[in-house]
């Protein structure tokens, strides 16, 4: 799997590809559509001043497209997503599972900042998406406010990503307590306490042990205001030895966290170490670069940040 296809753009996924398929939105009545299995379908209504509700739009989607062939779905916005939580769209998807037997990839709440700031997206319990789609291989969710995840067992999920300005600690625990035997790529944007991201070492324990994540190849615990502490935990985490790729990017990583990564367990088995958006000093950038030179590890130290007075920011919060 190419882990580089995931990024921190917080894009609306209106154009381009998703899950290897060209993104297509529902066109006006009568307009031709590509075959259902050859597109990533973007199902979305305007967050503001919508002309139709998400339910109406989804009904039109189901009537127009042969949903039994649909492999990839992007749910964008729903009406007043900053006020009304996601339980309606989630229920609708879960109830429509029988009509979407081929669905393998789902991005839920792909609203760019221009449509709804990430911390304003009102999420809810996303567990039904995993329960109703047992063959799902890829689930990506944007927004941490109100987000819930109950422990589940899911045999086929390969990619699980949570993009958030603040990811509730209960969700982090929920992931850790889930049995995800096929999971290869796990990404959690922990965020800041200001936006509800209050994950502690104890919450991360199960993920870092890797016991319930036997297939894991990429772990991204990122966008954290306590990135140094997270790096310290990762440096000693059993799961890391099995990884091909590790991300500690987007957060407030300082020399302290980098020191922990350098002095912890060996990381030279990795193919990729992503530390972009960091607060390392030039001297530490050089030390890290030297430490991995010749190791074959693809190191990303781009986007070096300067503190703004006393302030250091994660990449995505608001």
């Amino acid at each position, binding site marked *: 799997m190419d882990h580089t296809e995931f*990024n921190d753009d917080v894009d609306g996924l*209106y154009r381009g590809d998703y899950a290897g398929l060209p993104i297509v939105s529902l066109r006006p009545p009568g307009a031709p559509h590509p075959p259902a299995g050859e597109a990533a379908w973007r199902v979305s209504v305007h967050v503001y001043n919508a002309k139709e509700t998400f339910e109406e739009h989804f009904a039109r989607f189901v009537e127009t497209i042969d949903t039994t062939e649909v492999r990839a779905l992007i749910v964008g916005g729903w009406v007043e997503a*900053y006020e009304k939580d996601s339980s309606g769209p989630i229920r609708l998807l879960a109830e429509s599972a029988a009509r979407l037997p081929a669905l393998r990839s789902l991005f839920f709440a792909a609203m*760019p900042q*221009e449509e709804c*700031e990430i911390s304003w997206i009102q999420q809810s319990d996303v567990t039904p998406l995993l329960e109703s789609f047992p063959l799902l291989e890829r689930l990506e969710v944007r927004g941490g406010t109100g987000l819930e995840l109950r422990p589940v067992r899911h045999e086929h999920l390969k990619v699980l990503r949570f993009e958030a300005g603040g990811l509730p600690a209960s969700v982090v625990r929920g992931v850790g307590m889930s049995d995800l035997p096929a999971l290869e790529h796990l990404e959690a944007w922990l965020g800041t306490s200001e936006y509800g991201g209050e994950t502690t070492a104890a919450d991360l324990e199960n993920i870092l042990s890797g016991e319930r994540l036997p297939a894991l190849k990429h772990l991204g615990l990122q966008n954290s205001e306590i990135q140094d502490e997270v790096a310290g935990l990762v440096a000693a985490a059993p799961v890391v030895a099995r990884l091909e790729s590790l991300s500690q990017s987007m957060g407030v990583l300082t020399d302290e966290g980098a020191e922990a990564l350098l002095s912890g367990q060996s990381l030279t088995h990795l193919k990729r170490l992503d530390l972009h958006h960091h607060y390392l000093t030039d001297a530490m950038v050089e030390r890290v670069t030297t430490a991995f030179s010749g190791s074959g590890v693809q190191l990303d130290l781009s986007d070096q940040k300067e503190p703004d007075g006393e302030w250091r920011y994660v990449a995505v919060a608001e």
Partner: protein
Amino acid sequence: MTTIAVVGTPGDRRVTMFADACARQGLDEPAVVPWTSVLRGEEIGIEPGALVRIDSPGEDAEADALLRGPGEPSRIGGGARWHAGFVAGAARVGRAVAATPGAVLLADVEDVSVMFDKRHCHARLSAAGVPVPPALAGPVGGYAELRERMGEARWGRVFVKPAHGSSASGIIALHASGRRVRAVTSAELASGELHNSLRIRCYEHEPDLATIVDLLAADGLHVERWFPKASLGGRAIDLRVVVVDGTPTHAVVRAARGPMTNLHLGGVRGDLDAVRTGLGPQGWERALEVCARAAARFPGSLAVGVDLMIGVDWREFAVAEVNAFGDLLPRLEGLPGGGAEGLDTYGAQVRAILARHAPVRDRHVPVRDRYAPVTERPASTRERHVPVRDQRVSAGDRHPLAKERHASVGDRTPRREGGSSGA
């Protein structure tokens, strides 16, 4: 010999770059009438036969003090006074030109007045069917009224703009739901005063926001519904398109992680080719058409800068603003196929001025350099290179001077758009 004079700030980049463009096209260096002397009421000396350009006073602190009154230049406020003073100054220039034999004003005082009042500008564009985000009608007196009116309109997210601001000064990107608010702005509230800052701030404490809005409201507010913009590589984008003599000649993409794309606020120049690709050929043509139509509402203005927003779905367009002095884009060359290839925004204007006003014997073969045109096309053939105007813009939207290249702007009575000038 064609003589040009510029009302501006001596030594300011706008003045020197325009003078450079004149030199490249074989014209004498324009005389500069300082804004400060216009604003002090000193006599305005115009040479007979001069073509008179009005430019921005730029960031001249003295002119600013004359317009807004004394005070810290970074402060926000005094917009209404600025506007009245500026329009009065421009009108004085207009009268001086009218009283000078053969002199021609290359601007329209009423156009300038409307462009520097976002409420009037919006009304003029809206009445002409140019796509703009809907706006709250009538005055908005303060924060409480703002929220009340947003509630009535069921608008959860808006742009609050000082009626007379420029360069994003005092603009607030506001998201509100009950007591939960999020306001992104370059305005900095300190000890009860507002200042422009180079850093974007986010206010989530409602009493602070209320103070800011109440302070801004004293000079008039224009409130538009939020228009979610398209993004590229995680950055929201908009376009600044310079329209010279009716033709969109120059465009830049401005991109930012937040809602303010202005370059001085951390915005970056985006990839124009990527935007053109994103829009597709027809979409790009429509984008330029919208800009041309917006500019056509200011027929007395030689060049305007249109800020065009592209919708998040890459289909809709909306004009955010039309800037009277939106041509300060150093070293930017004209769009391919836009008729001003190889010219910067000033070069394109000088050429348009010559095409309209210079006797044929005065035209010089331009000196070839990086920004000089390789060949000077006669006006009649230039039109062919502008498919947007030829094919897409209805006759009624044409620049009224486009077919009257020898008419002078200054000869025209300032036009009122059918009930839309809103003055």
